[in-house]
């Protein structure tokens, strides 16, 4: 047979459970705008029934656990898309600085200097002894050399700016790694306890997402709840409660900071995240552009020089080098040709326009004109080589930003999906609140009814007993 006090304790369990449920709901509402927060749900469970005189009677309700709503697969996909998007965005913004150096679309860039140089020579052909025209050839040569100098040094500036970003990003990565390690430790210690590590796991997910913004990484969740994080295809960053710091050290030849993990240089293996994007700009795009610029400069220097040497200057002497001849430091590499390009002659009379030593001959200027029209570099004319170079820069940027936009859309969708699993809807929480409030009121009503019944028992049955 059931008892009044049995009912009282059942009602009490309901009141307690509803209080807990309201608490969870309140926490959800409080964190409605917390980034990375996973919505929590109280899992109510019927208490074990009690056998009273052969009757199995329910004994109320308990909150078995508070569950965080999370889709781990979604989180992983979101992290991997974030790595890609962040890498592309960083790449695009780095390359946009490069783009500005060669922005032919707005009239900046080298092509006007190249065109101006050949124009000045053609102008000279109409009046080869004119000192003003000769001076403008010298000036145009200077402008061309300075154009190459400044393009080359601007590239170097972008490169060293990117290098500084790399160092800062590595510091941020180390910082996040320490946070993950410490969260790992707390999560492991709470694993299996009634409190559960839900909030901490959500926090760690958020830090992992921040990490994905910075660098491509792979994560493995262990049975104790901790995650192991590695970068660059296997270099450890976090294992359990331990963070392995990455270090940077400048390369003695290039001056660019290399990234080390446990003593091993992992720079070239790093992909993804803003670090991946920065490294791609710093170690691949800029060196390759610098090389193209050097090759173009070296080719112009040697061809213009040999054109000048084929003719005679205004004094009737055999022509000399026009630009300072470039001597490669190592064979097969024109490194430094663009940055060191300069005029070998400053005297206008030394422009070798004449083909026979007479002052009125402009026959040798044909050799200069041929430098412009002949395929002098990689089977192309200087103009088309340069046109392709700027075209390639533009194409790299536009295709990377298209991919970044696409990745952004995927991320938006994943975030929508994620928030439909983990996100807090105030409407839903409000409805839950009403539900738990009503349940609480009902249980309180039961308590009050039992109170009345008990009162009734005590008053009436007690009075009967005392009256007897």
């Amino acid at each position, binding site marked *: 047979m059931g008892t009044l006090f049995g009912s009282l304790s059942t009602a009490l369990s309901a009141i307690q459970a509803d209080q807990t449920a309201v608490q969870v709901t309140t926490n959800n509402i409080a964190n409605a705008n917390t980034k990375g927060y996973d919505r929590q749900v109280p899992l109510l469970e019927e208490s074990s029934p009690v056998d009273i005189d052969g009757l199995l009677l329910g004994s109320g309700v308990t909150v078995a656990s508070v569950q965080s709503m999370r889709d781990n697969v979604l989180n992983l996909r979101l992290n991997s898309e974030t790595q890609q998007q962040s890498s592309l965005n960083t790449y695009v913004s780095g390359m946009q600085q490069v783009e500005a150096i060669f922005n032919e679309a707005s009239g900046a860039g080298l092509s006007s200097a190249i065109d101006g140089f050949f124009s000045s020579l053609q102008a000279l052909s109409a009046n080869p002894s004119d000192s003003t025209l000769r001076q403008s050839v010298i000036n145009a040569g200077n402008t061309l050399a300075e154009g190459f100098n400044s393009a080359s040094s601007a590239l170097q500036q972008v490169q060293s700016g990117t290098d500084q970003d790399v160092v800062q990003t590595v510091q941020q990565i180390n910082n996040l790694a320490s946070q993950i390690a410490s969260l790992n430790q707390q999560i492991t210690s709470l694993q299996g306890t009634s409190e559960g590590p839900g909030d901490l796991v959500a926090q760690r997910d958020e830090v992992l997402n921040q990490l994905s913004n910075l660098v491509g990484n792979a994560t493995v969740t262990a049975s104790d709840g901790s995650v192991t994080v590695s970068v660059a295809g296997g270099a450890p960053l976090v294992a359990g409660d331990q963070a392995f710091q990455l270090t940077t050290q400048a390369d003695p030849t290039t001056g660019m900071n290399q990234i080390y993990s446990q003593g091993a240089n992992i720079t070239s293996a790093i992909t993804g995240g803003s670090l991946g994007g920065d490294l791609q700009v710093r170690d691949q795009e800029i060196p390759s552009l610098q090389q193209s610029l050097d090759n173009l400069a070296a080719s112009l220097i040697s061809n213009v020089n040999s054109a000048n040497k084929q003719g005679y200057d205004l004094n009737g002497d055999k022509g000399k080098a026009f630009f300072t001849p470039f001597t490669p430091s190592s064979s097969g590499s024109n490194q430094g040709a663009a940055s060191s390009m300069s005029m070998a002659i400053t005297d206008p009379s030394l422009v070798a326009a004449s083909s026979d030593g007479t002052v009125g001959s402009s026959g040798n200027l044909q050799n200069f004109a041929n430098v412009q*029209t002949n395929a002098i570099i990689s089977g192309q004319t200087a103009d088309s080589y340069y046109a392709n170079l*700027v075209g390639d820069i533009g194409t790299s940027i536009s295709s990377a930003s298209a991919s970044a936009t696409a990745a952004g859309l995927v991320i938006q969708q994943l975030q929508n999906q994620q928030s439909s699993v983990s996100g807090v809807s105030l409407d839903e929480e409000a409805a839950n609140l009403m539900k738990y409030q009503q349940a609480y009121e009902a249980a309180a009503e039961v308590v009050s009814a039992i109170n009345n019944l008990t009162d009734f028992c005590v008053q009436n049955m007690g009075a009967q007993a005392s009256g007897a």
Partner: protein
Amino acid sequence: MGVSLNTDLYQTVMQGIDTLQQNENNDLQEMSSGKQFNNLSEDPVAVSQLVLNEAQASNVNQYLQNVTTLQNGLQLADSTLNSVVTALSQAMSLGVEGANGTLSDSDRQAIATQVSGIAAQVLSLANTTYEGNYLFAGTAVTTQPFTQDSTSPSGVTYKGNGSTNSVQIGDGEYIPVNLSGSQVFTPSGSDVFAALQGLVNALQTNGDVAGANTQLQQVFNRFNTQRTFYGATLSRLQSTQDYLTQEQEQLTSAQDQIEGSDMATVISNYDQTETALDATYQAAGLIPHMSLLDYLH
């Protein structure tokens, strides 16, 4: 499972506003610059074309300038040679006059003096300069080509050279722009100065004046043939100029087509974007009012 509309809508609206503002910026930039693109990455292929187009345009502009410079020099050369023709015609008339057997010695002397004067005039014309350069010195343009020389039978020595110069007026197209002084004035057997001197000598010595004049006539004919070079070159330059001007126009219009923006389209795009942006702002203003919590009392 709850669809958390609140946070999502904000994000979606923000992304929408971002995109729309970016579009609006691009349109504004296009309107103000009149160019379809202001960065390489907006249209890499077009920018590559633009670089080549500009290189070509720069060449064509220079060819056109060269043509103009050459025209000035060639016109001066042509008119100088015209003056020489007039002078030689005068000399020939004087020769006919001097061949008249009834003339006295002093009359012939007077005519000889006039012919000498003409010879001096022709010498001066042959030393004409343009912008400091001698027109008839071959490529030795800073050396005075014709000087008086009493040791020479013609009384004149050529100090220039026999070279001619060519100037580029098109891609791979070079045009010879002068004749050397020795080709024009002193080809062997048709030396202008020798012929004039011959006439003077005949007049002074009462020699074969008619024969000397016939010789001068032959030299004159030869000279006239030579000088057509300048007229022909000028007319070739004229047609080159027409062609280059046309090419310049084509290149300019190609450039406009590559980079010029279509204002009507841009402005209508801009209007559309602005309308969409307005609507998005209004929608964003409505979001905060929608929560069940507002109805809980």
